[in-house]
């Protein structure tokens, strides 16, 4: 390893025993290495990581491809007509099938999606909609307070235009068929809006 002869000093003849020892050592190290790799691979823990995944623009399949654009944009139905709880509750709510049937027992009954809907209705089955805008369990978000702040107690904001407010977090659902998650909905997203609008900065306002 070193240039000068002094430092080169090759070890004279390896004894048989020594060879065996080095083999054993090599074995030992390789076993240790494999144990380490196996153990490290095991170290994946459920719930260990904070939620990531912003589902940016990701499609969430629904039992019936509900066209938001036809309802909200073309026909101009207010968001809160179907998502009734938004103004008075934590959750916005998914309309019950009866609410759909209120119109669709008459309107567009021949369309395939409506036929599917009627089928659910007649079989007394629940439509299992999938949640698109889901925040982690440790987040306390109320639709009520946000709607109060931005719609009902917001001068100059007409309730008819509530979809503009909804779009803060849900994106322009009017232009979507099946709703997609287009905003990150992570903490930074919330905090920036709270800062801009003098929302509370107390941790326990949003965490639970």
């Amino acid at each position: 390893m070193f240039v000068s002869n002094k430092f080169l000093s090759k070890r004279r003849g390896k004894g048989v025993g020594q060879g065996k020892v080095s083999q054993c050592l090599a074995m030992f190290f390789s076993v240790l290495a494999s144990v380490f790799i196996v153990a490290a691979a095991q170290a994946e823990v459920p719930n260990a990581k904070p939620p990531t995944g912003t589902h940016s623009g990701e499609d969430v399949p629904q039992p019936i491809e509900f066209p938001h654009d036809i309802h909200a944009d073309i026909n101009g139905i207010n968001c809160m007509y179907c998502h009734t709880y938004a103004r008075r509750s934590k959750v916005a709510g998914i309309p019950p099938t009866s609410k759909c049937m209120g119109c669709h027992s008459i309107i567009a009954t021949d369309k395939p999606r409506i036929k599917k809907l009627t089928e659910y209705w007649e079989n007394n089955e629940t439509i299992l909609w999938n949640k698109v805008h889901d925040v982690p369990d440790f987040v306390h978000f109320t639709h009520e307070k946000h709607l109060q702040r931005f719609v009902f107690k917001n001068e100059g904001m007409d309730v008819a235009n509530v979809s503009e407010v909804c779009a803060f977090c849900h994106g322009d659902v009017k232009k979507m068929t099946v709703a997609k998650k287009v905003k990150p909905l992570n903490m930074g997203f919330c905090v920036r809006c709270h800062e801009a609008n003098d929302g509370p900065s107390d941790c326990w306002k949003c965490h639970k």
Partner: protein
Amino acid sequence: MKRYYVMGLFSNFEEAFSTISEIRQHAIPGVTVDDVTLKSPIEHPEIEEILGDRGSPVPKFSLFGAIFGAIFGFLFLASAQANFLTQPQGGKAIITLPSNIVLSYEMLILFGVLSTVIGFMINARLMTKRHPLYSEKVSLDQVGVMLELDEKNVDSLKELFKKHKVLEIREEVSQ
């Protein structure tokens, strides 16, 4: 113009020392002590008596780094604390002096050390290629005296080296 680099290797420091002393006394006209580079295996602070005080700006780097570290540290911490949205804590202040003094002190030292090291690297011309005349014997036990000079002085310099029992003379010409 061609520049000549000549290096003489001496077996001990005294010989190199007296060689440089003679150069300082203008033994060779046109060669001054400023052209001399001493290459030694150990540190010789004494040589500065002959080479002249060439100074070292490294402490200035330290001072700058330390001041920067302390100020930056405090401002960074203070602005972070002021920006921290959840302020109220145990009746304590927002910008707490005791903790900020501790942390600014650590930053002072960290930046002081980093700046000193950077100053050293720059001033000592480290991380550059070794001079072609570099001899491995310098790292062992011999002392090298290297001069950068014109062609006309090379021979007289070699004479001077030989007078002081030089062991080996190496030279190099560069453009």
